[in-house]
């Protein structure tokens, strides 16, 4: 096969999944192209400070320092094997073409095979006071620390419904920030019930326990089963108020709050690529359908990592490598069957752990049951829960895209990335139907805002 006939394999995302896919393809002699929005590789979990900020400190990543450095090294040291394009937003997929926003302006890229490793983002839920300055998502709080080396506040309270909560609390406390509360909106009982399943990934489970223990040594207990969250403040965060698991009102003074409730898949590009979506009950979200090997329903389009279903960084690495092998299989290349079997075996074990983790952190729907009509759901457009409920009640909106058309919910700068799932949850409650049946917001390009400039034809 001549060099000209080499298939073009494009990968979107330079987190654990994208990097491992690129590495495996490069080992097989292909030269994949990796597009990533960030300046440096690592994705969200192994995000690096800007180059100007100097060398990466392994302290940032804790237990994961070795993994982080390995991921960073693949693209840093592999320039001749991998065509790495940082600071590039892939904002559309249509047919076999990607639309790019590069540092040099708009470009396009044809591909033969496409691996989408687009990752996940915080799932944000509204609660009274959530739009006050000083309220961040947990992931946002973590990025502030990891990428900018700053804290979101001096007295910080964290709220979550997933394993990110004890980790971020630990990272902040370790950095010397006064963490005044760590509140879990799910119950402790849900975690106890899943202990055996969590041992499927004993080392990860042990790390979780270690963070929790370290937090406790610093006098910071994660308090489980909190309800009725509210941030108080006049123009900015002054206190966090909640009801504890025994129903008692609690209050802590703070100047910043990090709050998010699990993760949501970033699947817009999969949508634009035409992938079929399935409902993931544990996430209460529609996700692109992915085979165990990494194939989507569109030939030539593959999915790896949290962009298809939440599995965490280790699963993302496995899926990235496995998906690369699927690409090679589809190209008619020989692949190492033992490596395939090994990846599938580890992946199966990780999946058991993930199921237990999902069950340990069930969706805290009680926060949405309590949302008042006046609460803003869509921050971009200022659309309230009441407006959404009215569209359901008076205008027959029983599907999220219709609710969007009638109310403007999800029609702003974020295009529903932050409010889409909340809108679906509230609509389902208003219509007294399954979350599944209200559907999902259809993605329309661009996946993120792009600048208006006059481009050469």
């Amino acid at each position, binding site marked *: 096969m001549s060099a000209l006939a080499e298939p073009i394999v494009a990968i979107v995302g330079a987190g654990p999944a994208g990097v491992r896919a690129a590495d495996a393809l490069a080992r097989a002699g292909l030269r994949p192209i990796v597009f990533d929005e960030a300046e440096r590789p690592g994705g969200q979990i192994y995000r690096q400070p800007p180059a100007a900020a100097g060398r990466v400190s392994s302290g940032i990543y804790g237990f994961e320092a070795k993994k982080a450095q390995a991921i960073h090294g693949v693209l840093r040291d592999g320039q001749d094997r991998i065509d790495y394009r940082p600071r590039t937003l892939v904002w559309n997929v*249509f047919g076999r073409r990607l639309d790019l926003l590069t540092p040099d302006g708009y470009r396009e890229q044809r591909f033969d095979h496409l691996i989408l490793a687009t990752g996940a983002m915080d799932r944000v839920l509204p609660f009274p006071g959530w739009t006050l300055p000083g309220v961040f998502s947990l992931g946002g709080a973590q990025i502030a620390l990891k990428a900018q080396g700053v804290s979101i506040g001096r007295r910080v309270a964290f709220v979550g419904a997933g394993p990110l909560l004890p980790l971020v609390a630990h990272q902040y406390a370790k950095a010397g920030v006064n963490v005044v509360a760590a509140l879990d909106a799910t119950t402790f009982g849900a975690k106890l019930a899943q202990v055996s399943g969590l041992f499927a990934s004993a080392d990860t489970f042990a790390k979780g326990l270690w963070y929790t223990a370290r937090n406790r040594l610093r006098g910071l207990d994660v308090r489980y089963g909190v309800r009725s969250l509210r941030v108080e403040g006049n123009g900015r965060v002054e206190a966090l108020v909640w009801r504890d698991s025994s129903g008692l009102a609690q209050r802590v003074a703070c100047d910043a709050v990090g709050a998010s409730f699990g993760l949501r898949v970033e699947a817009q590009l999969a949508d634009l690529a035409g992938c079929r979506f399935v409902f993931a009950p544990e996430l209460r979200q529609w996700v692109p359908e992915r085979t165990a090997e990494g194939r989507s329903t569109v030939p030539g389009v593959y999915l790896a990592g949290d962009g298809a279903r939440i599995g965490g960084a280790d699963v993302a690495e496995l899926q990235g490598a496995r998906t690369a092998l699927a690409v090679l299989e589809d190209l008619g290349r020989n692949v190492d069957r033992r490596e395939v079997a090994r990846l599938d075996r580890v992946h199966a074990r990780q999946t058991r752990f993930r199921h237990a983790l999902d069950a340990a952190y069930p969706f805290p729907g009680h926060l949405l049951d309590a949302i008042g009509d006046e609460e803003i759901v869509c921050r971009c457009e200022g659309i309230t829960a009441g407006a959404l409920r009215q569209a359901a009640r008076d205008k027959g909106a029983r*599907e999220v895209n219709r609710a969007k058309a009638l109310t403007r919910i999800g029609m702003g700068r974020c295009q529903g990335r932050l409010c889409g799932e909340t809108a679906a949850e509230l609509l389902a409650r208003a219509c007294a139907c399954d979350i599944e049946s209200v559907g999902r917001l259809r993605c329309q*390009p661009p996946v993120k*805002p*792009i*600048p*208006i400039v006059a*481009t050469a*034809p």
Partner: protein
Amino acid sequence: MTERLSVDVTIVGGGIAGCAAAAALRSAGMSVALLEKNLCGAGASGVNFGGVRQQGRHLAELPLARRARPLWDELNERLGEDVEFQATGHLKLARSDAEMAELERYANVAAEHGLRLQLLGSSALRSELPWLGAGVVGASLCAEDGQANPRLVGPAYARLARRLGADIREHAPVTAATRSGDGFETRTDRLEVKSRFLVNCAGVAAGFIAAGFGEDVPLRPLVPNMIVTEPLPFFVSRSIGVCGGGVYLRQIARGNAILGGGDGWGDAESNRSRPLTGVSLAAIASALAIVPALAGCHVIRTWSGLDGEMPDVIPVIGFSATTPNLVHAFGFSGHGFQLGPIVGEIIAELVTEGRSASPLEPFAIDRFARPAQAAQPPQAGVGQ
């Protein structure tokens, strides 16, 4: 299990025209079933630019556009909700002396149809809109034209029709529409509707329905290519088009600038459409030439949809040439939004009186004699 209905009128297609017809027919005391393949107002009625425009129309359409215009003033009252209609005026820009001369010619002819257009030279134009790009030499203003929110109008008409007693079925794509005895039998996968009249306003799918009655029309898909920016401080006080029609632009009260131009990609069979990047970037470049102040803001969404276009870019409106009591209204060729409310009234006139107060001869379905293609087998089904 098939549900059976029997009504006076079956309407295929829940766009603005279909829903407005359903409401008007109910007001006239007729029983109505409306079958919509998706959601009412989700097709061309909902994805268009939102221009409520008379200026620049084909002269044959002007009488209809003139009749439609007062309906927009009363639309909020009629529909019981705000569809964001604003008579902002519509400016058609000239970018050369030749274009200005063309605007003058049109203004003179339009005046004979009762449409008053105001011609503005460069200095008059710039004193009102100082932010216009350097290439603009003049414009024609139709002060009574305006804009409205297309996402709201269709669904609001559907709710009005429902309140008036129309039986509106959504997610009900028609699989067959045939002559049956004195009337019609229209089927979906769950429904069989018998009716005395059949109204075909199925948008891009209308050609399939017409073909089933031996009327082969040269309807092709038209795919708008639309772009919207993030909200900006309000300054584009008029709805804007250009001579030749390459780009159009308006800014809504919320602050978003909406612009369009060119054609996206669409497939009528699968009912799918997408904006095309090259077309979007070209429309952006054209928009920046006339409104340079948009530079640097962000596009937050692009979209498209499917309309039907006729070769002479005016619609088919009127009775079938082959089949009694069959009424067609489709092929609005990318500018049916403003006409929607009056087309609903006209359909009701045809059904209830057998004639319309508006001159419909130019819109006759048999104006395209195409004997060469008559032998082609009819295409099966609609709205897949």
